[in-house]
C-alpha cells in the first residue's frame, strides 16, 4: 500500500508541474460552461431543453474528470519512448503496486481537478443533499479510476508518438460523442433510433446521469442500477488496462 501511495504521489506532484496545462484546461472547461450559458442558450430549442446551462454543467463535471484523469496517459507514453518505464520496472516495488500506483495517480489528478467544478455545479445547478453526496463521491472515484487506467493502457500500445496521440484521441472522441453530455437521449433517439440505448450505457453517460440526479436536475434516474453499471465498467476497464499496461511494458522490442 505504501509503495502504491509513493508512486501515486509522484504522479500527483508532476501534475502541478503542468500549471499552464491546468490553467488552460480550467479556462477551457469554464469557457464551455460560460459559452453554452451565454450563447448556446440563445440558440437552443427551449421545448427540448429549458435551461441548457443547467443541463450541460453536470456533463462538464464528467468531462473535467475524464480530461484530467486521461492526462496521465500522455506522460506514460512519453516515458515509454524515453525508456523511463524500464527504470520504473527496476524499482523495488511489485508490478501490481506499480500499476495500481499509476492508476491511483491518474485518478487523484481527476478528483482534485474536478473538485472546483463540483463547487461550480452547486452554484449553477443545485446542492446535493445527504445520500446524493455519496453518489457524487462514488461516481467521481469510479469514473476517475476507469479513465486513468484506460488512458495509461492505451498510451503504451505503441511507441510512436503520433500514433499514441491518435489512439488516445480516437477513444477520447468516441467516449465524448457517444454520451449524453451535450444532448439528451431523446435527441440521439430522434437521429439514431435504438442506438440511443447503447449511448446511454457508455461510462460517461452513466456518470453524467448520476451527477444530474445528485445535483437535482433529473429526478428520473435509477441510481442503484446506474451505480452498478458504472462499477462494472470500472472493473472491466481496470482489469483490461492492468494486463494491457503490464504486457506492453514488459514485452521485448
Amino acid at each position, binding site marked *: 500500500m505504501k509503495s502504491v501511495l509513493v508512486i501515486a504521489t509522484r504522479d500527483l506532484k508532476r501534475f502541478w508541474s503542468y500549471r499552464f496545462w491546468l490553467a488552460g484546461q480550467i479556462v*477551457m472547461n469554464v469557457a464551455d460552461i460560460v459559452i453554452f450559458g451565454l*450563447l448556446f442558450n440563445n440558440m437552443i430549442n427551449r421545448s427540448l431543453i429549458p435551461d441548457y446551462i443547467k443541463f450541460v454543467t453536470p456533463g462538464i463535471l464528467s468531462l473535467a474528470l475524464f480530461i484530467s484523469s486521461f492526462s496521465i496517459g500522455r506522460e506514460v507514453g512519453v516515458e515509454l519512448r524515453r525508456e523511463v518505464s524500464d527504470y520504473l520496472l527496476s524499482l523495488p516495488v511489485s508490478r501490481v503496486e506499480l500499476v495500481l500506483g499509476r492508476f491511483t495517480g491518474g485518478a487523484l489528478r481527476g478528483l482534485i481537478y474536478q473538485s472546483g467544478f463540483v463547487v461550480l455545479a452547486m452554484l449553477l445547478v443545485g446542492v446535493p443533499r445527504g445520500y446524493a453526496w455519496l453518489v457524487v463521491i462514488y461516481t467521481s472515484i469510479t469514473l476517475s479510476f476507469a479513465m486513468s487506467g484506460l488512458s495509461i493502457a492505451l498510451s503504451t500500445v505503441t511507441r510512436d508518438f503520433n500514433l499514441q496521440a*491518435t489512439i488516445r484521441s480516437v477513444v477520447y472522441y468516441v467516449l465524448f460523442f457517444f454520451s449524453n453530455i451535450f444532448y439528451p437521449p431523446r435527441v440521439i433517439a430522434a437521429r439514431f433510433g435504438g442506438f440511443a440505448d447503447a449511448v446511454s450505457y457508455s461510462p460517461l453517460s452513466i456518470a453524467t446521469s448520476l451527477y444530474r440526479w445528485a445535483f437535482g436536475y433529473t429526478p428520473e434516474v435509477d441510481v442503484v442500477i446506474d451505480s452498478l453499471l458504472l462499477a462494472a465498467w470500472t472493473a472491466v476497464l481496470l482489469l483490461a488496462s492492468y494486463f494491457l499496461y503490464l504486457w506492453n511494458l514488459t514485452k521485448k522490442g
Partner: protein
Amino acid sequence: MRAVSSRDLVDLLHVIEWDVRKLRRQTLFVAMRTTWFILQVIVFGTSISLLVRSFPGLNYYDFYLLGVFTTLVYSVSIARGYEIADEFDEGIVEYHLALPVKRSTLALGRVLGGSVASFLFTLPMYAFIMFMIRPDNVFYVLVSLVAIYLFSAGVVGLVITVVLSVKSTDATDILMGVIDALLVRLSTVFYPAPIIAKVLPYYYASLANPISSVSDFLRVLFLPEYAVYASLPPQGQVAYIVGLAVGFSYLAIYVISHKLEAGGWR
C-alpha cells in the same frame, strides 16, 4: 534584394519534399483522423443541430459542417508544431541547421512543406464536407482550396514561430493547447455572428479571430445566403486570411533565419 539561384530552388524543393514525404508514414494516422472526423460530423453534428432552434435561412447543420472543418484544418496545422517540437528531442533541428542550405531557404521550405503536408492531410475530410454540402460551382471549390491552404500556411507559421521561440516540448504542448482552446472557442465556427453580438466582448474577440474569417468565408462561398450570419464582409475575411499567411510565414522565416541556434534547447 538577394538573387535566388537555381540551387536555392532545388534546396527549397528538397526541404518541402522532406516535410511532405512524412505523410507517407502517416497513412494510418490520416485514416484514423478521417474516421473520427466523420464520426464527429455524423454523431455530434447531427445531434447538436437538432437542438438548435430554427433561424431564417440558416440550416445549422451546414453551418456546423464548414465551421468544424475549419477547426480541423487549424488543429492539423497546429499538430505540425508537435512534430517540430519532437524534432528537438531527436536532434533533427540541429541536423537541418548543419545542412549546406541557406537559412532563409530552410525556413521558407519548412513553412511551405508544413502547410502543404497539413493541406494534403485534410483533403479526405474536405472531400467528405463537399459531398455533404454539394457545391454547384467548381470555381468556388478552387477558391476555397486556396483559402484553406493560405490559412494552413499562416497557422504553420504561427506554430513554427512559437515552437522555435519557446524551445521546449512540454511548454509548446501546453501553449499550443491553450491557444487552440481559446481561438476555437472565441470564434464564429459554431455560433452565428448575430448570436455572438449579444455578448460584445466575445463578439469583438471573434471579429479579430482568423478562424472566424476562414469559416465565414467558406460559408459565404458555398452558402451565400449565410452572409447575414457572418462576422465580416468577404473582403475583410480575405484580408484576414492573406494577412495571417503572410504575417506568420514572415515571422517564422525571421525566427529561423535570425534567432535559431543549434544546441541549448533547455
